[in-house]
C-alpha cells in the first residue's frame, strides 16, 4: 500500500527590500504602486496559491553610515496593502509580517482581526522579533529589547493577542431590532492580562473574526525561534529549501511539537524559494547565471562581504581576490537594519570557508558572492522544476514553498502558467479552492470550534 501523496502548499512572496529583485530589467515594474500588487495577487489567485506574503522592514538599511542604495529601497505598509488587496481578490490568503517588538498587542490584534473580517477569513500574521536599537529609533518607546528578551516578548505578545481574539466567542452580537438587544451581555470582549511585558485590561472592540484568529507564521531560525514556532505557530517561513537542509530542519521542528502536545501535521514548513525557468535545462541554467550577475554587481558584492567582515571594503576590487584582512568581531556597525547581518553567526568560520572556496575555484569577490549567496532554489524546465518541488515535499523537506520571483510584479506568471498545471497533473496541487478561508487552504483547524467546545464544557 503506497502512502497517499502529500498536497503541496504554494505561496507568493511579493519581493520587498532585498537583492533578489532585478530592478534593472526593462519588464520590472514598481514595487510601490498598488497596480503592481494587484497584478501579482491576481496571478497568485489565478494559480490557486494558498496566500500572498509580505515581509517587513521598519528602518531603511544603512551601510557605512549611509542609506543603502544598490537594491530596491522602500515598501508600503503591510496592513494597508493587504486590506486593499482583499478588495481585488476572493480567496487568496493575505499574510503580513508584523514585528512584536515595535508594536502593542491591542493594536495589532485589532488590525489582524479587522483584516480577517474585511477579507472574509484570509488573514495571517508572520510574527517576527527583530529587536535592534537602530530600528527602535523610529518608535516612541525608543523601544528596543535586549536580544535575549525578543522571544519572551514575542511569546507574551502572541499569547496576549490570542486572549484578545478569544475575548469574543462569536455569539455576543444579537442585533435584535425587535427587542433592542444589540449585545447579549455588556461585558463582551472583556480581558485582563498581567504579565512581564504587558499589564493590560479592558474590552477588545473587534468581535470575533471569520477565522477566529489569524493564521500564525514564525520566521526566526534560532533555537528560541524554533521553540516559539513549535509552541505557537501554524506555519514556519524558513530559509531551508534544499533536500538535506530542509529535511533536517523539518525533522527538528516537527519533533519539537510533541513537547507542546501537538501533532506533527499542526505546523506547516514553508521555505522561501526562488526559481528560474527555461524551455530547456541548458537555457534555464544560462538565464539563472545571467540573473545572478544582474543581482550581484561588483558594488553589491563588496557590500555583501561587508556584512561578514563588518569593515569598510570599498577600496577592494570586486573582480580581484578576497580581502586579506580579518573580519571585525566587535558589534556590527558597518551594515545596519538588515536581517542578513544576523545570518552569519560565526564570521571567522565563514571567512575561512570562503577563502578556501575562492582559492580552489579561482573566484573573484564577485564570483564568490554569485556562487555562494542566495542561489536560485529551482532552475530548470517546468517539468524538472515541478518534479523537484514534488520530490522535496514528498520527502518531507517541506510542506510547500513561498516563492519569490526576481521580477516584480510579472515574474510569478511563468510559474503560475507552466509549473502549477504540472503539479496539478501530478495530483499534488489543488485545481480549485476547496474552501474560502486561509485555514481551509492550509488544512488547519478553525479555533472557533475549539473555544465553543471549551465554553460548552465549562
Amino acid at each position: 500500500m503506497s502512502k497517499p501523496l502529500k498536497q503541496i502548499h504554494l505561496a507568493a512572496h511579493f519581493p520587498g527590500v532585498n537583492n533578489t529583485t532585478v530592478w534593472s530589467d526593462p519588464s520590472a515594474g514598481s514595487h510601490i504602486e498598488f497596480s503592481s500588487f494587484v497584478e501579482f495577487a491576481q496571478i497568485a489567485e489565478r494559480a490557486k496559491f494558498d496566500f500572498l506574503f509580505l515581509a517587513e522592514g521598519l528602518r531603511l538599511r544603512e551601510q557605512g553610515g549611509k542609506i543603502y542604495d544598490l537594491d530596491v529601497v522602500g515598501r508600503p505598509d503591510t496592513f494597508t496593502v493587504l486590506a486593499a488587496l482583499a478588495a481585488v481578490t476572493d480567496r487568496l490568503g493575505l499574510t503580513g509580517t508584523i514585528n512584536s517588538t515595535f508594536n502593542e498587542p491591542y493594536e495589532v490584534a485589532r488590525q489582524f482581526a479587522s483584516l480577517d473580517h474585511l477579507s472574509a477569513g484570509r488573514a495571517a500574521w508572520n510574527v517576527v522579533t527583530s529587536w535592534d536599537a537602530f530600528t527602535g529609533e523610529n518608535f516612541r518607546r525608543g523601544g528596543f529589547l535586549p536580544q535575549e528578551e525578543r522571544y519572551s516578548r514575542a511569546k507574551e505578545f502572541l499569547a496576549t493577542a490570542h486572549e484578545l481574539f478569544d475575548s469574543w466567542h462569536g455569539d455576543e452580537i444579537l442585533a435584535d431590532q425587535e427587542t433592542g438587544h444589540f449585545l447579549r451581555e455588556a461585558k463582551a470582549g472583556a480581558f485582563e492580562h498581567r504579565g512581564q511585558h504587558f499589564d493590560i485590561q479592558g474590552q477588545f472592540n473587534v468581535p470575533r473574526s471569520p477565522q477566529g484568529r489569524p493564521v500564525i507564521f514564525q520566521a526566526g531560525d534560532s533555537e528560541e525561534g524554533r521553540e516559539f514556532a513549535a509552541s505557537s505557530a501554524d506555519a514556519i517561513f524558513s530559509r531551508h529549501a534544499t533536500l538535506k537542509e530542509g529535511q533536517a530542519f523539518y525533522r527538528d521542528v516537527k519533533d519539537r511539537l510533541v513537547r507542546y502536545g501537538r501533532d506533527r501535521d499542526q505546523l506547516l514548513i514553508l521555505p522561501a524559494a526562488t526559481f528560474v525557468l527555461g524551455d530547456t535545462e541548458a537555457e534555464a541554467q544560462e538565464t539563472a547565471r545571467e540573473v545572478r550577475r544582474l543581482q550581484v554587481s561588483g558594488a553589491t558584492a563588496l557590500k555583501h562581504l561587508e556584512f561578514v567582515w563588518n569593515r569598510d571594503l570599498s577600496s577592494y576590487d570586486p573582480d580581484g581576490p578576497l580581502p586579506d584582512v580579518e573580519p571585525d568581531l566587535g558589534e556590527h556597525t558597518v551594515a545596519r537594519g538588515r536581517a542578513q547581518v544576523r545570518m552569519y553567526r560565526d564570521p571567522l568560520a565563514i571567512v575561512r570557508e570562503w577563502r578556501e572556496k575562492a582559492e580552489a575555484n579561482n573566484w573573484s569577490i564577485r564570483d564568490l558572492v554569485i556562487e555562494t549567496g542566495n542561489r536560485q532554489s529551482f532552475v530548470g524546465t517546468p517539468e524538472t522544476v515541478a518534479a523537484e518541488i514534488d520530490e522535496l515535499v514528498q520527502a518531507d523537506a517541506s510542506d510547500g514553498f513561498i516563492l519569490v520571483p526576481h521580477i516584480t510584479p510579472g515574474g510569478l506568471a511563468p510559474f503560475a502558467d507552466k509549473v502549477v498545471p504540472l503539479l496539478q497533473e501530478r495530483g499534488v496541487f489543488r485545481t480549485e479552492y476547496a474552501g474560502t478561508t486561509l485555514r481551509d487552504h492550509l488544512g488547519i483547524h478553525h479555533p472557533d470550534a475549539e473555544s465553543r467546545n471549551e465554553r460548552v464544557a465549562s
Partner: protein
Amino acid sequence: MTTPAPLHLAVALDGTGWHPASWRTENARPHALLTAPYWQDLITEAEHGLLDFVTIEDGLGLQSSHLTDPDDRTDQVRGRLDAVLVAARIAPRTRHIGIVPTAITTHTEPFHLSKALATLDYVSTGRAGVRVQISAKPHEAAHFGRRKIDPLPDGDYNSPAGQEAVRGLFDEAADYVEAVRRLWDSWEDDAEIRDVATGRFVDRDKLHYVDFEGEHFSVKGPSITPRPPQGQPIVTALGHASIPYRLIARSADVGYVTPHDADQARAVLAEIRAEQAAAGRADDTLHVFGDLVVFLDDEPGAARARRERLDALAGEPYTSDARIFAGTPAELADLLQELQAPGLTGFRLRPAVVADDLPAITRSLVPELQRRAAFRTSYEADTLRGLLGLPRPASRYATASA
C-alpha cells in the same frame, strides 16, 4: 442674490448612523457592520453624490454613551473595525471620493501611521486623508498599559478644567502630525532613480532623516514608504474649544467645528484664523467645516417625526455636540448657506441613520445645492487635494538640498 461659493461636503460614517437607535431601523443592516460590502455600499453611495470625502470614525475601545468611560449598555451598536483598514479595503473600488479614516494619536506610533496613510494614498491613487483624534479615556490607556490617563476633573472635555487636562494630549497630537508630515516629506518625489549605469536604485541624497524630537517621542526616519501621490495626504481634526482649535490652526488642512448658528460660526472662525496667523500659516488654505447631525426627508415634518420615533426607541432624546438638524433638503440647504456666510467652506454631515440619511444627502440635498449652483455637478479632480483646492506641497527637504 449673489451666487455663493461652492460648498465642500463630507459625510461622517459611524456604524449604522449617529443616532444610537439607528441600528433598529428597517434598512440598517446591523449584522453587516463588520463586513466589507457594508462599507463599500456606503462609500459608493457617497461617491454617487459627488461628495468630497467620507470620514470613518474609530476608537481604541468599545463605543460608549459616556464621553470618557465605558458604559454597560447592551442596546446600542458595539464593536468596530480599524478605520484605516476599512478605508484601504474600500479604496480600490472607488475612483474619485476622498477617504479619511480616524486615527488616535495618544496610543499609536507616528511612524506606523505615516506609512499606513502614505499607503492608503497609493491604493486610492491620491485620495487619502486622516482625522486625528486624542484619547483622554482612562480605560483606553489601560488597553495599552504604557501610560496612565487620569479621569477628567469634571467628566467633561469642553470645560476649562477638562481642556486644561487634555492640553498635553493635544500638544502631543500636534507633534505627532508634525512627525508624520516630515516622514511623508522624507523621500523627495524623485528619490527613486533606478540608475542602471551606476547600479543605484535610489538617490540617497534625496532621502532625509526627519530627526523629530518631541516631549513624548522621537522619530529618526526616513520613512520606509516613498512620498505618497499627494505629497502629503490631508490632515483633519475636530475641535470644540480653544485648545483643539489651536491644533486645527497649527496642524490641519481641514478642521471640523460645531457651531449652532451663524454667530457662533463667526466667533469660532475668528479664533481659528487668529491662531492660524499666529502659527505663521495665514497664507495656507485651511478649510473649516461645520459638523451637523442630519435627519433628512423630502416630506415636511417627516424627519422630525422620524427623530421622535428613534428617540422613543432609544428611551431618551438624542443629544450631540453638533447641531441636530431635522427637516427637508431645501431647509438644510438654506441652513448650510446661512452658516456658510461667516466663512465656513464646507460641512461634514453626520447621517443620523446611514441607511436613510446618506441617500437623502446624495439624492436630495446634493441636487438641491446643485440647483442653487452651490455644489459641483461632476468631480473636477482626481485627488482629494484637487477636490479641496489644496496645492500639492513640495517636500520641505527638497528646497533645503536644491
